[in-house]
């Protein structure tokens, strides 16, 4: 199976690999997936407390090229958005942008789940109620 140019580019030049200080109150961390399934994503956001704008986003991913590209792209899209705007990122946007084939759609689902998990972690740390999400359709 051939990868799209964009997946290859994110794989070779991933954006925003790294770790934010999860001890900080304005940092939200989402860890999704499982080693047995062959992919684990950790996505972190740092939020400006007054404007609620995501000022920084980092990821680390164990997985195939599409999983790495999906998380790399997600961090790029997160930066500069408010937390509420970030919630609107849909896995199908990632599929479209990266031209993922059907067998790799689960990578985009994982990235969307990671975003939501990071936001919920941030909300919880800041005394807000955790949001509940509809179960993702594609797993």
């Amino acid at each position, binding site marked *: *199976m051939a*990868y799209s140019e964009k997946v*290859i580019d994110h*794989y070779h030049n*991933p954006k925003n*690999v790294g*770790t934010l200080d999860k001890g900080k109150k304005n940092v939200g961390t989402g*860890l*999704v*997936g*499982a*080693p*047995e*399934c*062959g*992919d*684990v*994503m*950790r996505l972190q956001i740092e939020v400006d407390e007054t404007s609620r704008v995501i000022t920084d986003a980092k*990821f*680390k*991913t*164990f*997985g*195939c*090229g599409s*999983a*790495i590209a999906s998380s790399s792209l997600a961090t790029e899209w997160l930066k500069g958005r408010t937390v509420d705007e970030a919630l609107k990122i849909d896995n199908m946007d990632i599929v479209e942008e990266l031209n993922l084939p059907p*067998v790799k759609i*689960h990578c985009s*689902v*994982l990235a969307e*789940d990671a975003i939501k*998990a990071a936001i919920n972690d941030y909300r919880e740390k800041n005394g807000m109620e955790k949001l509940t999400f509809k179960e993702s359709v594609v*797993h």
Partner: protein
Amino acid sequence: MLKLPIYLDNNATTPVDPRVFEAMTPYFLEHFGNAASRNHPFGWQAEEAVDYGREQVAKLIGADPKEIIFTSGATEADNLALKGVFEMYASKGNHIITATTEHKAVLDTCKHIEKLGGEVTYLPVDNLGMINLQELEAAIKPTTILIAIMYANNEIGTIMPIKEISQIAKKHGVLMFTDGTQAVGKIPVDVNKDGIDLMAFSAHKMYGPKGVGALYVRRKGPRVKVTAQMDGGGHERGMRSGTLNVPGIVGFGKACELCMQEMQSDTEKISKLRDKLESALLKLEEAYVNGSIEHRLPHVANISFKYVEGEGLMMGFNKNIAVSSGSACTSASLEPSYVLKALGLGDDLAHSSLRFGLGRFTTEDQIDYTIKAVSDTVNKLRDMSPLWEMFKEGVDLNKVEWAAH
């Protein structure tokens, strides 16, 4: 001069040796006859070529040429052996013993036989991929007709104790079939010394062409018969109908001859390169060999690089290096290799494995390049692996509650 891309997937298929190709070419245009045409020179030439090929193939495995049944490949030979014995020996019994790490051509055929009313025992393997001989013997019952254990495994290269297995089979009056696809041409295989009654093997794993293989069927002590699974003109002593693939058989024969002549020198060269590759890659932290090191094909290394996913790893160099991975991230099931799982490896380690299959044409500079490319990619991906970071922080990954996905 380093030649790219580098082919290290010789367990999947091998390139055709130019000498094999050369031997085949006249049989496409000039000598195109049907080996079954008995009444003109075109047929005679084809028949002569097939007879010679049959001799070359038989010689490599210490068989009589009459014991070679040509097929379209090892999958067909596996099917013919299992289904053919099941049908032929139905009055004697319906039980077959095999192992969980067999190739799908054996396992799926066994599943089919179960649907037809057969009974199949799937023996487990130990962490090196070996079956337990006591367990094998204990599994034999009065209805057992066949033991089907592969000579060497395609994913990890583990070589089974075929001689001991055939002795057990003989002691109980059971036939012994082995899928020799990965072993024949690579290591000495002798159907008489090894006590094999039936054996499947294929040309394209030993520098021959695709589309041709053989089933060895013992003729003496005991005389073994299989029921044909392909009906027609009664070719191949009635066991496999269908016009013979003359150029394929010529190539298969030549490939066998070359393997016989060059096995020792090939093995010396290839195993040295394999060992160099393996010891260099094992210098990486948390890298482990899968399968038996002691009883292993000389050209195979299967290594897991913990905390890195195999498909992602391959992507780092697959423009220049061809290998395969136990991670089946592309398959709909997302299930990693059943062979690695059968060794007791966790799914995570199975997902982290690469199989290197060296071959006759592998060079030392290719191995040097591969060592560097794989090591660099493992290090790069670990730098972006959350699991590696957690491991380094001393987190026990087995105790993490994963949000299963």
